[in-house]
């Protein structure tokens, strides 16, 4: 599966133009700053799934905007980019 990412701004571009910041923690960034347990999980724990996972990619060699997408870590199939 070609690792081509359909950037919402720039259209389909090869993944080498992007930085990946890894899997998106459940519930995304931020969250309740008072809940230290949840924050701990968000910062330190990774699920490392074999399958579909939400990720954040930064188009550093293009529009320099972030997008969120779902990537299958086994096949690299990508969908639900926003």
């Amino acid at each position, binding site marked *: *599966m*070609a*690792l*081509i990412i359909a950037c919402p701004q720039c259209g389909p571009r*090869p*993944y*080498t133009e992007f*930085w990946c*910041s890894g899997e998106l923690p459940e519930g*995304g*960034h*931020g969250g309740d*700053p*008072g*809940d*230290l347990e949840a*924050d*701990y999980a*968000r*910062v*330190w724990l990774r699920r490392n799934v074999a399958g579909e996972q939400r990720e*954040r990619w*930064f188009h*550093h060699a293009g529009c*320099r*905007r*972030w997008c969120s997408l779902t990537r299958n870590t*086994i*096949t*690299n199939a990508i969908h639900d980019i926003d």
Partner: protein
Amino acid sequence: MTSIDFEGREIPIEPGDTIAAAVYRSGVRIFSRSFKYHRARGVYCGTGDCPNCSMTVDGDPAVRTCVTPAVAGQKVERSTGWPSAGFDVFGTLWWLRAFLPVGFYYKSLHQPAGLWSVAEGYIRKLAGLGDVPIGHPPGNPERRYHHPDVCVIGGGIAGLAAALAAAAGGAQVVVCDEGGVGAKLPPGPLASRVAALRDLVRVSPRVLLIEHATAVGIYEGPLVPIAGPDALHLVLPKKVIVATGASERHGVFKGNDLPGVWLARGAALAVGRDRLTLGRSAVVAIDTEAGLESLEASRGADVPVAAVLVPAALAPRVPGGAPVIVGGRLVEALGRRRVRGAVIDGPAGHQRIACDTIVLALGFVPRDNLVRQANAGPVEVSVAGDVAKPGESFAAAEASGRSAGEGNPPAMEPAPLPAAPRNGFVCLCEDVTAADLDLAWHEGYQGTELLKRYSTVTMGPCQGAMCHGHLRSFVAERSPVPMLSGATTSRPPARPVRLEDVAAGARYPLEWHTALHDRHLEMGAVMEWAGIWKRAERYGDVLEEYRAVRERVSIMDVSTLGKYQIAGRDATAFLERLYPCRVADLKPWRSRYALLLNEAGYVFDDGLVGSLGGEGYYCTFTSSGADAMESWLRDWAESWGHSVRIVNQTSTLSAINVAGPRARDLLAKLTRDPVNARSIPYSGMSRITVADVPCLALRVGFVGELSFELHHPRLESVRLWDALLTAGAELGIKPHGLEALRLLRLEKGHIIVGQDTDFDSSPAKLGLEWAVKMDKPDFVGRPGLLRLASIPPNRVLRAFTFPGKEAPLDGAQLLAGDERVGFLTSSRFSPALGHGVALGFVYRTPNGFPTNVLAVDGTGRLLMGSVAPTPFYDREGVRLRA
């Protein structure tokens, strides 16, 4: 006459020659000595599939000379054998083979302890395929990226047809071939057809043909690295078509590795293309219908055929004139340094035939290394031609290439396995014989993957091209479990690749220059790397530069700082939540030192945040973090849904720091705007025009003197720099570089993030709690700090003084008593104070953090130091606030 240098001998070359052809024509028959037993080896496959013709060419070891064009002036030598490959005294190892079974060093050299370390040296000298030329200057291959729709690997008839068909459908195509296209073909209709297709490819605007370039592997992406003659091509196609063809099947029998044994296509090329004479008498073994065609191709040779061995079914189709032995089987090739005869097991029993050439046409094996690699991962590839179905007619191969190019699904047929090997060399690269496999099997290594790991069969330079099928049939004969005789995992590199190709592009790193780069060079600056920037380390005497700052006035190019303008409705809320310090209470045109914490609560950058009145904020970050900071800022802005505009001005703005007690005097000469302490107080900001250049001036304190950072448009930078130097001449101005800066800031006790911090440095570890306002409701890293609050830091950054005229080196170890208690991160002799000053981490001991330490830095000195308060210099900050 053109010639190459072969081991000191001039050897003439003819147009179109490979190195192997030229060397062979000169009378050389032994091309290499084998990996373990130093057996004599000569040209065998002729198509770059086996290791036998490997030589050292212009310092590159293990070059497959049969597919490498001869170029006048090349220096060629055989890599192995002593005193020479032709006469190698270690050839006697073969007679000692009973004492050198597979894995012998595991069995015999493990005790007494120490034996292995002695033996290893000898084994390493004796075994192997030549030396890595440590002192040989590497080439500088560059790295090129391609993003075609289709990447075709292999420029044979199927590959070219696939490329043309894909291009006809509108696709952009990259096609590569490891030799010149058609170079592996003897003259004939196939060669003509390939030449015709090649000409079409060359004029096609959609197809890029890369010749003399090997596809190293197929990685996720898909990514196909192709090592070319002067560049590593990183091809990122949407689709990969593998058309690597098939190699001729390796024959395994006693003496099968002697020079004079040829695979039929190699023989056909030697005769038809290179016009070489193989010998005076040949035995030809044919096993399959495809082999019959190979024989046809090699019949141009004027070698009298002593016997043709064929199965009964093919016998009627053998062309007349040659004595045919129906059902005959090769048992042994006789001879020591080359073939002297053959032993044949035929209808009449064992029979000796005198001959000097044995040609094997046993069928074809797909070169499927790359396909198996891709199949092991998530990459889907198409296949075309012989790799999909070996031994097809060339018209069929062309049709299958066209079909693959048009996007039709691939059809790959499993290749039949050869007969199980009984005797002789299964693996030519690693010298593994059938007897070795047999022994390993009886020792319990009963499966292809186990045999591979134990005996290294299939692990040599040819990556199993010769032996993989034989290994599988060896296991299949002994075990009914199909999994055990399955194909072994194929991994990159599929073909040998040079280390310099792997490192391609390393000598062309991205290098950013400030607008003043040329000025620094003109002034004799020594430049150093700072992230991807080149910065001036010093212009001459560092102490002179230091004195200019402390006593007079100096300028420094600080354009590499990360510079951002952040505005918009939520700018204040955004920065308040991003920084651990307070932002909302910043007075207009005031700035503040700010740390940046990651979500774990660790310091990863620092800089200033300043208020531009109603226009938003101006933020600076460290040089090394300047680029990545943009993604960090945008990530949070988007996550929080803040309406902010983030403008990265790092490369559009330059910055020059004007520092020293006379800094204000210098500026006053070049501006009509007020620069007095009331207009721009310490930590204040102001828009002023200096030498007609519009500047944002920031009063900063990093070097500990009165200083103004002038941020200005990049295009005006040289003008401003020159004006400052000219106007400052009578004040004794001198620019300072990074080394002076490191000393100046150390006297003030300021940290440099990255040098005085680690990946897990919380503000508490660095003694920077004052820069963190835990009473703010939320900021990035606050929950992390709350968690860390219950864990006292196990080490902290402390400032030290070292009395005396010397300072330890950066990185010196710190001792208290006999115990190692920490290390210095920065250390310099302070000219202003007359003693050493340093920052360093100390570990917690049962008596708390040590305060008196002994620094050891590898120079033999032992220096006593003790914890001291910072700043070391100008404690009250009088000079800074002047």
